[in-house]
């Protein structure tokens, strides 16, 4: 039991990332509100970023700032990559939000079911 607990604690950042990923996906799947869907995507993104950054972590490592002392640095590369990733996801989020604004202007709602109903009515079904 304690071994299990220990392994869970060891991999807590990975498990946390997994959990966030599933939570995000769940949000996207179950909610019909478009804004909530975007939030879900963001949570998924965060999960992946967390996972990536967690890989770079080294136990007892310090940030890789060269001070001349003989210490273990953490791997800085994932953090650098994730910085780019965050920028990308932010831009996607902004774009989606602007689309939601447009959708609200044209359909008068941000609920997907409602939009589908409106579209069906328009198509005469």
């Amino acid at each position, binding site marked *: 039991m304690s071994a299990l607990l220990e392994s869970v604690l060891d991999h807590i950042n990975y498990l946390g990332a997994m959990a966030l990923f599933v939570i995000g*996906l769940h949000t*996207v*799947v179950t909610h019909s509100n478009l804004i909530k*869907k975007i939030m879900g995507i963001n949570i998924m993104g965060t999960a992946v970023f967390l996972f990536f950054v967690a890989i770079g972590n080294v136990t007892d490592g310090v940030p890789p700032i060269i001070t001349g002392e003989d210490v273990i640095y953490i791997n800085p590369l994932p953090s650098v990559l994730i910085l780019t990733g965050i920028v990308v996801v932010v831009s996607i989020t902004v774009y989606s939000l602007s689309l939601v604004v447009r959708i609200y202007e044209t359909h008068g709602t941000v609920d*997907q079911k409602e939009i*589908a109903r409106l579209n*069906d009515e328009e198509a005469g079904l």
Partner: protein
Amino acid sequence: MFKRNKTVCDHPQLKQRSVIGRFTVVSTVLVLFSIAFVGLFIAGVHGDIGVFEWVREVAVLRAVYRFIYELRALPLLIIGLPFLGSVAMLWFGRNSCNGRDSIVIAMTSLTILLTVFTYPHALEGGFAYSIPGVFGLGLSFNVDMLGFTMLMVTSVIWFLVMVYAHEYMKKEFNCNRFFFFMGITYGAVLGTIVAGDLLTLFLFFEIMTFASYILVIHGQKEDSYHAGYSYIFMGIIGGFAILVAMLLLYFTVGDLAFDSAIAALSQHGSARYWIIGLLIFGFGIKAGMAPVHVWLPRAHPVAPTPASALLSGIMIKLGAYGILRIAVSYYFPPVGTDGGDALWLTSQTIGSAVIWIGIVTMAIGVFLALQQANIKRMLAYHSISQMGYIVMGIGVAMYLGHIGAMGYAGAIYHIINHALFKSLLFMVAGVVFYHTGESDMYKLGGLWRKLPLTATVCLIASLGIAGIPLFNGFISKTILHHGIVEAYQYGHPTFFYAELIFIVISAGTVASFIKLFYYVFLRKMPARYRRITPEYNNLDTAMAMMALIIVYIGLNPRFVLDTFIIPQFDTLAYSADFVQTYVVGLTFFTAADLWLMLGIVVFGFIIFIGGKRWHLFHLKLPYWMSVEYFVFYPMNWIIKNACRLMYGDECKYNDETITKLRLKDNKDIGFLDRFKIMATVFNTRFEKRIIRSDAFIYTVFVTGVLLMMLVMRLV
């Protein structure tokens, strides 16, 4: 290009008033010249008369002869000529119909002349030409005796039908389009025949399917579209079947040239049966073979007569030609193989199946032909039935293996004969329609008074197809009968029943043509046809020439046999002794054959009289026996219950599209339309739902994939 408005020839006032038009005279001369040229050339090659000595005397003729003789690209030229001709025709046919038709007739007659020049090469064993690089594998052409025979039949009949079409098409719209696609189809047909490998054959076969589609729906009426759909889609299915077979063959053998491949195929288990099965299916669709003949009686009647004459006369033969070509090349052992060799086994197994397919095709064709009122539809069903004879002949040729030469000879002979008399019969139907505007035989009658020449040629053709002695059908039916008799003598005794069915069906054919001739040309003439004025024009030239050929073959059966068929055995694996004794030594008009024929004729009369008396010519199969019902009843059931299962009460029953699916209320909806409606129903139910559950699909799929992979890794 293809203008929708009327062309010049559609105006009746432009029709020439004189009894015999100039165009008719020129065409008649050209027809006589072409046939004479063919006859003289062939006689010259055989050295019967000293034509070639005379040619050698004249330097110019000799030079021309040597030039054409040594032209390696001759097969390509033969194929290319119609294509060029159709393009040229569009240009010359812009304003003048006679100009266009002159090009068409010149092009077809020139093709005959070029075709004859391949005869010496073909006798020597073949005339190969290839274009590497096209399609990655290259195209290759080869004119051997089988190819030459088909070429000769095709080019002569096509030429005569084109002469006929000049006059006939004056009453139709869109003539330029018609003749253009006629030319393309012609080129494709020739290409199919001279193809030296399966890929080339497939290429031209597909071109033929698509080009002839335009001919089928030329009338552009609702029923021509319906017929056209079954024609083109079945053609595509057939093409795909051939494609798959080709892939399998290429994969197992590594080569597509028409050589013996049975040694390589035998090592691959069931692949050889798949290949031949798919090829027989694919070519069989075009040939009008029994379970897949459904397009034929729909497409042939709606096409304009010249097109249906060629569809029935030539194009369905290409299906049989394809099967024969495959059978005697890939599935026969190399020349000189002994009769007891194990390599014959495959061919024998398949052959027995093909014989029965042929017999079934014959039976269905004749039975349904007897029920028809429309002349062209009846002729179309007879085409199916006669194709059954040919397929049966091919079956015998395969089944008896080493000694199957009789079946082979019969099949080829019947291909030639059927091409002649069926084209002629369609032309007769066309002339009747041309003058009366009617093609229901029960509404016609007494026309022999008004159209004596047509009645005569119709009689000749009917006697030909019925197999009466002194006409060509008798010869090939006799050979085929010998073939089927050999099949039970040398092979399995059950083929005795096949022979019985063969005889009954021949009697049915006789009855059917008695019926045709009686209803159309004898009886009392309805009053509205009294104003028909007979005149001599191109229609009659073509028909008379065709009838002459039929009679010539009937009186002189050895000509076709010696010139065309017997040389073919040089390149085939049949036993030379057998060919020498039975095929070369075949005697026609023996007492046994004549008595049998007399019996068949009497039986035919009995069927006709009985049928007329007890109204047996108006039977109809119940709807539940149709193909649609068989396929769609279970499908409808599944759709209905799946919907009920998934949505419960929400499932819409009375939607407009769904009511169309009901079988009983909508008998006239075709197979494909039904399929499309079904797809629409399916679509309206599921498409939107799938689209709405996008992320859900992702979740399910990813989970599924990961689980599957992990489980398979762990196990």
